[in-house]
């Protein structure tokens, strides 16, 4: 039911773990299925220089977390805020319809982590 790309990111997730001195952390959950995703960002000069994740969830949740981290690594905060779940799903060659909400979790987790960073660096929010 999953594409090869999903299975690849599921079995060899990129950027899994934590960043000790992360300056942006976001945790989001899906109340329906009960899955939880947490993103850690290291932001320098408005650029995401490092990103890691931890996920409790299904195969799609793990694969979309992994793909989302790849898609925002090295990008600006503004670009990260523009990340959509559709883009993540497309990058994984699609997801089964019942699993689209898992990609939403990945989008929300990235956005939550960026917003956490901006909360502590409100001056940078003005530039976005």
């Amino acid at each position, binding site marked *: 039911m*999953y594409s090869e790309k999903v*299975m690849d990111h*599921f*079995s060899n*997730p990129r950027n*899994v*773990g*934590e960043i000790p001195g992360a300056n942006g952390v976001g*945790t989001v*959950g*899906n*109340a*329906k*299925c*009960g*899955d*939880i*995703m*947490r993103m850690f960002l290291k932001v320098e000069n408005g650029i995401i220089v490092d990103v890691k*994740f*931890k*996920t*409790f*969830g*299904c*195969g799609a*949740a*793990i694969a979309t977390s992994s793909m989302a981290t790849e898609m925002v690594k090295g990008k600006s905060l503004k670009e990260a805020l523009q990340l959509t779940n559709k883009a993540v799903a497309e990058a994984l060659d699609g997801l089964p319809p*019942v699993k689209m*909400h898992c990609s939403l979790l990945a989008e929300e987790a990235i956005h939550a982590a960026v917003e956490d960073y901006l909360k502590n660096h409100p001056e940078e929010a003005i530039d976005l």
Partner: protein
Amino acid sequence: MDRIYMDNAATTAIAPEALAAMLPCFGQVYGNASSIHSTGRDARKLVEEARRKIADALGAKPGEIYFTSGGSESDNWAIKGAAFANRRKGNHIITSSIEHHAVLHTCQWLEKQGFEVTYLPVDEYGMVRTEDVEKAITDQTILISIMAANNEIGTIQPVAEIGKIAKAHKIIFHCDAVQAVGAVPVNVDSWNVDMLSLSGHKFHGPKGVGALYIRSGVKVEPFLHGGAQERGKRASTENVPGIVGMAAALEKAVNNLEENGIRLTYLRDKLIKGILENIPYTRLNGHPLQRLPGNVNVSILYVEGEALLLRLDLAGIAASSGSACTSGSLDPSHVLLAIGLPHEVAHGSLRLSLSDVNTEEEVDEVLKVLPRIVSTLRSMSPMYDDFLQGKNLTAK
């Protein structure tokens, strides 16, 4: 190592004896069992021989066995057929909250047709309390439907006691024995059942064939209308290969019942013990003793079932889970919720179901692979981190 198949509650591999018995039915014996000529009579002979074998396995009379397309049809027919045939007497049905969807969804549909249904709760082990059955009976009760053994957690129900209660109140008693037939001794008389469902593919027979036992004298409306097959109660040309294969598989299963039961119980308990002792934060779901010989169901906290199944599959092990993420509806298993598990504990459920094709080497391999997979998944779980730090993280 070859692939390890531990999802025998979902379906089983066909027994070589069953396959061998079926092959002639795709060749020489192609007749329609209802035809009057000898080509048809050859097929009829095989069908009736199969009926006798199935009847023997259940302690029933051949005339009480009706062939169907599987467990779901048997359940649908038994419940709808008895409900409509006895509508004048009353409109109340008693079942349990942990039945298979073939029973539950049928009962829910009957509610829309004006019937009333009581869904009995179960205890923490998934056992129906007989006093609850007794208490639920009203003067409107026409049918009690309780499964023999649960397909997810393996709990064996006190069927004989429930049968006694039903008999004392002259209420029709249907038992979904799809998981029990071929796995534990089944006897329609000592159980006092009036109807009993079984399905070929659960005991190494073919898929798409089953049977419904209907005690003679019990009033049940036909379900499939059409030709006069199955003594006018179930239309459609007999699935001769399926029927013959199912009977051969059941005959084999019943002949080896005791021996297999002992061996599977040993393997089951080795798996359970190995998992509970070697993986922290795990629990057994279902009854420790009153359970199917081949059923293991555990909750592994802080991991999600679907991810666990995919990892096991990559390691060559086929299993199943009641996690919300594996269900299309995103609801965790109704059985795990009915035994009182919180969503997050149901989330990490793992079912390993054994059959006589499984070996001790396979059990040992699973016990070697599973702890590694669990620790990998936990190492990427934010829930586990928070738990280790004394926090309780839920998605709500």
